[in-house]
């Protein structure tokens, strides 16, 4: 049987390579990181980011963009640290409602043909306001079970790695292997052909948004599991981080070309980039700028590898 390396495999190879290079550099700078505890410290805060990145990826798979991801995760974190731990029933109800709101946004955006960017920009204010109302000052308490799950010490590999793998596998299964995932990506790839086969594109988009809501909720819960409490601004940076993660992972803004495994790798890469910088001991003045520089470098690397790939193809 003839087997060629698919574009998807190469698309995955690029982020994996970036991650490997970065990890190599970190190990070289800080050999202590090469241990069970070390890996956990490097990566455990990547877990919620990875979940948020998957959520953003689902939105991007239907050619939309969610600018409210960060405020939504913050909102979920506030709910988790308050209702979910004190009155679990209401907590679950609120979170289910939030997922329903996401599905509804998908419906509205599709029916009225609204730009997702504006709708989500508006929603970002709404979630932020709700979060501030819930927690005017930082606080709350992570539910015990969340804390237990997030601080588990599984044998062989640390929790951060196990969780990342589980997220990647589950997301891969839903998005790449299940019928629903195929349908959602089909909408991003060629909406007409999905319609021609008799499917409802509206339902597919609503499902994509709802799924994104679920992953974002998980991101908020797992975040509180790590930080033990919440505040209204806790995850604001997840909006841009999640978009960058999807792109780093080989996803594209349009065309339904996405990769859940790539997205998780992208999230890990971004987290690792931060550590790499702090191990470099850059002057505090330039520490912020270095984050921008490293984003540029990694994305430029992507371009370079893409070029190489195209050259190979032409050959």
């Amino acid at each position, binding site marked *: 049987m003839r087997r060629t390396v698919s574009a998807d495999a190469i698309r995955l190879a690029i982020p994996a390579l970036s991650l490997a290079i970065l990890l190599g550099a970190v190990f070289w700078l800080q050999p202590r990181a090469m241990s069970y505890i070390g890996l956990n410290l490097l990566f455990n805060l990547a877990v919620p980011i990875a979940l948020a990145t998957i959520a953003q990826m689902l939105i991007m798979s239907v050619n939309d963009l969610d600018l409210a991801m960060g405020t939504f995760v913050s909102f979920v974190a506030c709910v988790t640290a308050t209702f979910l731990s004190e009155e679990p029933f209401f907590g679950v109800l609120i979170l289910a409602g939030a997922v329903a709101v996401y599905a509804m946004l998908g419906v509205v955006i599709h029916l009225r043909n609204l*730009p997702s960017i504006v709708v989500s920009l508006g929603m970002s204010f*709404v979630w932020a306001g709700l979060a501030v109302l819930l927690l005017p000052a930082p606080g709350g308490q992570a539910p015990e079970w969340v804390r237990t799950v997030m601080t588990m010490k599984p044998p062989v590999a640390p929790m951060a790695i196990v969780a990342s793998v589980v997220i990647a596998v589950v997301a891969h299964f839903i998005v790449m292997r299940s019928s629903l995932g195929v349908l959602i990506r089909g909408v991003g790839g060629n909406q007409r052909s999905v319609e021609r086969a008799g499917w409802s594109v509206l339902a597919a988009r609503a499902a994509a948004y709802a799924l994104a809501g679920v992953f974002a909720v998980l991101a908020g819960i797992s975040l509180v599991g790590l930080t033990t409490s919440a505040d209204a601004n806790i995850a604001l940076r997840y909006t841009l981080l999640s978009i960058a993660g999807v792109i780093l992972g080989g996803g594209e803004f349009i065309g339904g070309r996405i990769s859940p495994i790539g997205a998780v790798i992208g999230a890990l890469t971004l987290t690792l980039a931060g550590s790499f910088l702090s191990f470099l001991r850059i002057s505090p003045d330039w520490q912020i700028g270095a984050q921008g520089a490293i984003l540029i470098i990694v994305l430029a690397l992507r371009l370079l590898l893409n070029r190489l790939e195209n050259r190979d193809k032409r050959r």
Partner: protein
Amino acid sequence: MRMVDRISRAPWIWSWFAAFLVWFATIMVTGGASTLGLSQAALTFAAFSIIVGIGQMFVITLGPGNIDLSVPATMTLAGTVALKLMDVDNAMILPGLITAILIGIAVGITNYALIKALRIPPIIATLSMSFIVQSAAIWTNRGLRIKPPSFLADFTTSTTLGVPNVSLVALVISVIAWFLLEKTIYGRWISAIGQSTPAARMAGIPVDGIRFITYVFCAVLASLAGYLLACFSGGAALNMGTEYLLMSIAVVVLGGTAVAGGDSNVPGIWGASLFMFLVVSMLNTYGLGAGFRLIMTGLIIISVIMLAGGRQPGAR
């Protein structure tokens, strides 16, 4: 009747309508006594949003995906460097202004270089750039608040015939922007690119050149706003641009500019900027806290976009 009909379909009308409602609701609290004060304050502070909003509008007009997230950092860098250079000396006002503008030009050039040469999507290219620019601002003066030259401080904080000077500056810039958009070839071209880049290319428009100029223009307006804001508030601060990130996008969107590109609207920016200031004032006046303020703002943005309606089917 036709007049009414036409106006009700103008995309900027919603933001003006909302601004008026909020203004009215606020002055009613004092039975109208606060009319002049509130109007002056609104004009003053809207001016800065208007200036950055116009730059952002030009970029957004270029079509889907185009956005400049480096606006706040550019404001900060231009403000800090210019004030440091002028060092309270009235004779240095012009060199300071030129420096601020040069900073804008440099940021704009780098932004587009990242977008074009490295094919980084604008949203991430300008974000990365903003980190670097912010670092440069920290590095240049480590957050010291140097006072503006007295002439500039007076100019930016006083009024002419009851109208705040900064809003007059914003008015001049708006008129220029409106002129560029409505009367010049450049304006036609950015609108064409925003509606359909392939069609613009086939019509012989120098697409890359125009996109490049537009990113530079946006950064220059941001640096100008930074310069003015630093003078107005008595010194540059490292976080002075922060709130202008979402603000610059929100006023564009609320002002009736199409997010899908191609259609910009200068009057709408005024309505939206006044509204954004007034809504905070109103909610503060009524004693509502930060949470409600945010929720209301979000719901209003969504309502406006629902009312104004999405773009016709086929475009996203």
